[in-house]
């Protein structure tokens, strides 16, 4: 092969890499057998401290939820598990149908007209939505209103830099504003006035982008109901394990008139010559296989398997199941909030505000308290002071259906001791 391409040796291909950066020989030990490898890896894995789901009270964007066995039973089918992105999509009817189901479920959940085949995670979903607003309005500024997940905002800034989008924290939208972005519930778990924020965005000719918790939509008004233009969010809670932060799945849904601004692809249904229903790639208006060098989006391989998990989870839970776990989580969190606020020196950080299943508490000597809980096998709340200077000593606690009543007792007992 070297001869065919006209070079003398492998090293000739590497001449562009400075000598100082090249590694002449790798100091690697001899190979291990499978048995030895497993033993070594297990020994390493055992050094991790793994908190039980039921004793984990930390959220901040990623939550422990019960994942029915049906999810893995479907996603582990080799037809789904091993398949790469469908470049000859119509040959993969099963994959297309799964994506179509996902899109339909997200559109129904958010109350919007159309959803795409998924994105990478909540953070990139926020950034992609901002990009849609920028393209749609021709304006260069987005306003991040209130406590939006700080890491989402970081990703938004990184995306915005390349596209000339300025990210402004709070303030009134004006004629330069492409979109107002808010999170419901916000990063602290508190409910925000989504109707007022949406109206303010629209009054300035800007779009309203709602970053939502999908499970919260079993209780709260969906973005479509309050006229938000784009809804985005993190789908980890829909059947995916926290997995140290990923891979998760992002979703984006929008009003019909924005459909050509959606990144990635859209699967639709069609009928073949014999009148049989099938699934097709219906629209990918911004992608490189359509727009070549003028593409403004490149989302192909994606997190389709994660989107499939979300689709299976939502289908399995159904509207009543979803509402049930949202309510259980709500009740547990409110019960816990009451008990935590009663601890000496502890108080709700925003007692006048409403929340669902995550809430901020002011905690004396927060870092020491969290370390103490850790020693007792309990993962305490998230110290949000690390991102927000004004929130000194504020810790957010989250509850879901996996934190049973006894787990709440154990947490409070550990804090009282």
């Amino acid at each position, binding site marked *: 092969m070297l001869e065919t391409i006209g070079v003398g040796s492998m090293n000739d291909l590497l001449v562009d890499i400075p000598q100082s950066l090249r590694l002449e020989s790798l100091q690697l030990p001899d190979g291990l057998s499978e048995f030895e490898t497993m033993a070594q890896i297990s020994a390493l894995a055992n050094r991790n401290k793994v908190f039980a789901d039921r004793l984990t009270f930390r959220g901040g964007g990623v939550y422990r939820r019960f994942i029915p066995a049906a999810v893995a039973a479907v996603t582990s089918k080799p037809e789904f598990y091993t398949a790469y992105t469908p470049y000859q999509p119509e040959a993969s009817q099963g994959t297309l149908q799964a994506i179509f189901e996902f899109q339909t479920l997200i559109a129904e959940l958010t109350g919007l007209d159309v959803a795409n085949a998924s994105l990478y995670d909540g953070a990139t979903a926020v950034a992609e939505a901002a990009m849609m607003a920028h393209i749609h309005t*021709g304006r260069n500024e987005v306003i991040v209103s209130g406590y939006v997940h700080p890491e989402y905002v970081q990703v938004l800034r990184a995306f915005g830099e390349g596209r000339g989008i300025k990210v402004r924290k709070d303030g009134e939208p004006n004629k330069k504003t492409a979109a107002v972005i808010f999170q419901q519930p916000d990063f602290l778990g508190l409910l925000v006035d989504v109707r007022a924020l949406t109206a303010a965005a629209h009054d300035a000719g800007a779009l309203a982008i709602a970053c939502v918790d999908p499970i919260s939509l079993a209780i709260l008004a969906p973005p479509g109901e309050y006229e938000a233009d784009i809804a985005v969010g993190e789908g980890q809670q829909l059947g995916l394990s926290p997995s140290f932060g990923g891979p998760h799945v992002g979703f984006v849904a929008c009003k019909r008139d924005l459909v050509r601004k959606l990144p990635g692809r859209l699967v639709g249904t069609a009928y073949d010559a014999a009148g049989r229903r099938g699934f097709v790639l219906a629209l990918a208006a911004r992608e490189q296989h359509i*727009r070549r060098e*003028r593409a403004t989006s490149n989302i192909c391989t994606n997190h389709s398997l994660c989107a499939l998990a979300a689709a299976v989870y939502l289908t399995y839970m159904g509207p009543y199941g979803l509402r049930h776990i949202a309510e259980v989580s709500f009740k547990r969190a409110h019960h816990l909030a009451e008990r935590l606020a009663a601890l000496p020196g502890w108080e709700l950080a925003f007692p006048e505000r409403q929340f669902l299943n995550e809430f901020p508490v002011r905690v004396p000597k927060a870092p020491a308290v969290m370390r103490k809980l850790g020693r007792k096998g309990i993962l305490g709340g998230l110290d949000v002071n690390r991102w927000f200077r004004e929130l000194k000593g504020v810790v957010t606690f989250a509850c879901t259906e996996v934190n049973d009543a006894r787990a709440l007792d154990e947490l409070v007992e550990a804090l009282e001791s």
Partner: protein
Amino acid sequence: MADRRYTRSHEWVTVDGKHATIGITDYAQSQLGDVVFLELPSTGRKLGARETFGVVESVKAASDLYAPVAGRITEVNEKLASKPELINADPYGEGWILKLELAGDPPDDLLDEASYKKLTEASAQ
């Protein structure tokens, strides 16, 4: 109405005093097949000659649109938003795309009917 002139990228233009009307040619629409969407600019925007001003998307391909002449956009064919098929049905009439107020003289490399016909016949072979 003045004579229709053509570009090598398959747009047409007619000039009437300071005003120009732009569209894509019958040959272009026949090659593209059913047009399903047009991405068009807003009025007021200034275009240079040969500048990309939009995209025409058909069931087969998405292609850029180039301005045959320089000028300021005075009108965009709003009907195309809901009826992009007008491009196929009547490319030189109801399927017009933009009206411009000319800036300067039209470029001298625009083709007349006969030369454009020769160009399309050559590419057909």
